[in-house]
């Protein structure tokens, strides 16, 4: 269980390098990139924020899309609170390391190992994610980020994040993409991503 948690942590840590680089490409300083990883600590939201800022979008649009992307962590918290007993101040720490990876390890572990898996995965990812953000931001700050194709890499990172979900939710994905494409010429930068959130409405209506 610990080994599994560690290997996920290492893989995500490598991906933190690309976040650090993406943040630098969007014009954030090294301390800003590191602060995001320390305080926000949920990869997709961080990528969304720097993606919107890098495209020239407003801060409000960037924050809104980042927070909307973070809604799933609330759901993860519900699931994990049910499986892992945490009391007092440690609940705050548990909440902070509630992310895709720690929840995945925690929920797929046998019940008596759920806590071990959750904490090891969460803390390993936290340490390596922050280290690698620093390395990525520092590295990218030193070179011309477009010449080495980093703007293309950010799009690839988003595709990689959504890829595992494409089989079950391909219509939502397509809807989001089409809505965003329509909204780009019509709205200020950053807003198209929020408009795309409307792609979930048909599914919500159907499920009521």
């Amino acid at each position: 269980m610990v080994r599994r948690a560690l290997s996920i942590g290492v893989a995500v840590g490598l991906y933190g390098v690309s976040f650090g680089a993406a943040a630098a490409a969007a014009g954030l300083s090294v301390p800003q990139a590191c602060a995001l990883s320390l305080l926000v600590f949920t990869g997709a939201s961080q990528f969304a924020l720097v993606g919107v800022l890098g495209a020239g979008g407003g801060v409000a649009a960037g924050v809104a899309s980042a927070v909307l992307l973070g809604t799933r962590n609330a759901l993860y918290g519900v699931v994990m609170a049910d499986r892992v007993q945490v009391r007092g101040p440690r609940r705050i720490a548990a909440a902070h390391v509630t992310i895709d990876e720690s929840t995945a390890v925690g929920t797929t572990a046998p019940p008596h190992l759920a806590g071990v898996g959750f904490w090891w995965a969460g803390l390993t990812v936290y340490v390596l994610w922050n280290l690698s953000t620093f390395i990525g931001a520092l590295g990218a700050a030193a070179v011309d980020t477009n010449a080495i194709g980093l703007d293309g890499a950010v799009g690839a990172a988003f595709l990689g994040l959504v890829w595992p979900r494409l089989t079950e939710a391909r219509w939502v994905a397509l809807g989001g993409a089409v809505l965003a494409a329509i909204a780009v010429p019509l709205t200020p930068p950053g807003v198209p991503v929020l408009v795309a959130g409307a792609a979930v409405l048909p599914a919500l209506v159907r499920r009521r």
Partner: protein
Amino acid sequence: MLLTAAGCFGLKVAGWSVPSRVLDGPVFRVAATLLPVALLSALVVVQVFGHGRSLTVDARAVSLAVAALCLWRRLPFIVVVVAAAAAAAAVRAL
């Protein structure tokens, strides 16, 4: 940045502290699982084809194609990202 941190952290704490039935309703469940899919797809489009307030096709589209190919071949995330960056860099260097 602090707002993003507060919002994302607040959501995590909410999940751990509220009685499970509040956030466990079917509507919230569907929204929380599908919203990231819609937003990430939109981010792909904006990041790859966006150019201010217009859509263009340039080296980044090649990156996207390379990334899709890598993902389809089930290559690790870091390989996907590096290959995509290399593709855009190569197209620009031509």
